[in-house]
């Protein structure tokens, strides 16, 4: 996507680059235990390739970035808080790296992981 600059020439940041930042931030966010898949095909591709952008979708328009996260959350945590915290942390990291606002971060909770039964 295009970025503004005072110099002649443009800075172009690919959606791939943005999704790497987003995925790293999501995996450091407490309560997120994995990235999910939008559909079965994505899931297989993610498993095979160990794709670092797995579970992240970037939509860009002229001057806006919208991020969709597909996450797996730990069973037994308060999902609403974990989701808003991952959205907040991804928005912060991406905005800090890009220096431009993110219009929206949508969090799709694709699954819960049960590590222990209480």
């Amino acid at each position: 996507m295009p970025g503004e600059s005072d110099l002649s020439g443009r800075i172009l940041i690919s959606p791939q680059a943005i999704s790497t930042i987003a995925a790293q931030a999501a995996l450091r966010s407490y309560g997120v235990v994995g990235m999910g898949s939008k559909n079965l095909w994505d899931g297989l591709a993610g498993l095979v390739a160990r794709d670092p952008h797995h579970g992240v979708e970037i939509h860009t328009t002229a001057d806006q970035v919208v991020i969709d996260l597909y996450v797996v959350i730990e069973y037994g945590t308060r999902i609403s808080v974990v989701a808003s915290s991952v959205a907040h942390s991804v928005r912060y990291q991406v905005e800090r790296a890009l220096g431009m606002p993110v219009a929206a971060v949508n969090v799709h909770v694709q699954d819960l992981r049960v590590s222990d039964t209480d």
Partner: protein
Amino acid sequence: MTLTEPIVEGELRFRLMERYRVLDGLLLRLLTEAGMNWLRTNAAVVNALNVFPVPDGDTGTNMTLTMQSAWAEIANLPDRSVGKIAHALAHGALMGARGNSGVILSQLWRGFARSLDERYEVDARGLAAALAEARDTAYKGVVRPVEGTILTVSKDVAEAASQALESGAGSSLEILEAVVRAADDSVQHTPELLPVLKDAGVVDSGGKGLFFILEGMLRAAYRLPLDRPLISIQPLGEMALAEAAESVEPGQDWEVVVDFRPEVPLDLPSFYQRLESMGTSIQVGEGDGLYRMHIHVPDTTQFLPIEYVHTLGTVTNVHLENLMDQMAARAKNAAAPLRLAKVESGQIAVVAVSPGPGLARVFASLGVAALVEGGQTMNPSTQEILGALEDLPTEDILILPNNDNILLTARQVADLTAKRVRVIPTSSVPQGIAAMLAHDPNGDPALVASAMEAALRQVRTGELTLATRSVELDGIAVREGQFIGLLDGRLVVADGSLETAMLSLLEKADASQAELITVYSGADLLPAEAGRLADRIRGAWPKQEVELHEGGQPHYPLILSIE
């Protein structure tokens, strides 16, 4: 003072060891309540551990609310089984988890409860195992754990418990003592693991919160009070003197604030004791060897505290304020209603976010149709802004967020309403006021918006606030308790005196090229002091026009507009 060494000895200690040899449901209840209360008492300390020089933290509040939700589950539970109580606590913590640290805290309780299972009581060995399970559960909740946080503290706590057990601890009390010591140590080491903490010169807030919960438990076992920090010396920057004047009771006629440098190290217990005999609302702050003492005293004895402090060292500054008189003046002010501009259908209405009552008046006088309270540490929600503009009888709305932190919220509002909303990207109050001067309710919305955007660039913004911690930013070393000056959001000066910081900020802003300097005084600044500072500006820049308004904003003693 922290409880890093056992303070109870001899016969009493022996009895306590026996009493806490095993924990049943009743003891766990008692300890949990104490942990919650001690955290609540110290929540402000935890909140203050934020990474930037302006206050924005709420970890202490979030953890306290999480603990309160846990406590509410067991408050009326008649069970005496430690396992049942722990499960109920874990459930309550989960349901009420607030913020990231609250979620981690609820996971710690969950692991703790799982380990205790259905047991009626737990001994030292069982307690150490439960702390290990708490740690394991907390770590399972994240793919890439960040060290130097509450997670690390939970790990060190579990390790200390198991070591205490190995070296022969037979009572839960000994485990608790080892755990509090380890938590304190672990918190102190968080900056070494997490560079962002080190840069800001703070320890991790979530870890500190966990420490207070554990220390509160130990304090309860030692039967120490939990309702207030034993002796509270706060950094100067955190002294919230503003709320002092909100409600004044008989016997609090005068507010006395004395800055002083003690000649010999201050003996705090006896210092407090003397002050308590004179008045109420005592606060003591320290920064850089300089102490500030705040007290409310009855009429006719208002000079007593000053005379007393004078015997201890060099008095550098004294403020005396007649609170009764101030209250009367406030009551008179409050009576004058805020008059917002009336807009009609087809006109353009402006919604402005204002951080203080005085600033709200300024905005109202310039033709703002609706106001939303908010600023640096109190960002309004999209709902609040939305509510304000939905009530207006016109379709074309302009929003002045007046703070960078609120800009995105304001933009979100635009997507949530059927009205035509434009956000004028004002990042400070002076920019908002400058933009308002270019407003025309009857113009073409797009043209008015671009005129206002152009106008906001005509003004430079100076903001002065207290640094709540030491930090190095933009090449300027800031010490906690110093005043820092931000020019258009960028840190340009740090100084111990508000006056010096203000003057060098204006210097940096090229005030000599300006025509008008407007001063908006904050809620914490005494009116007489604001007047004196405005006179200093008039003295230093005699060619410029200087205006002083009571802004009433929190945290920022001065906001300056240079145009």
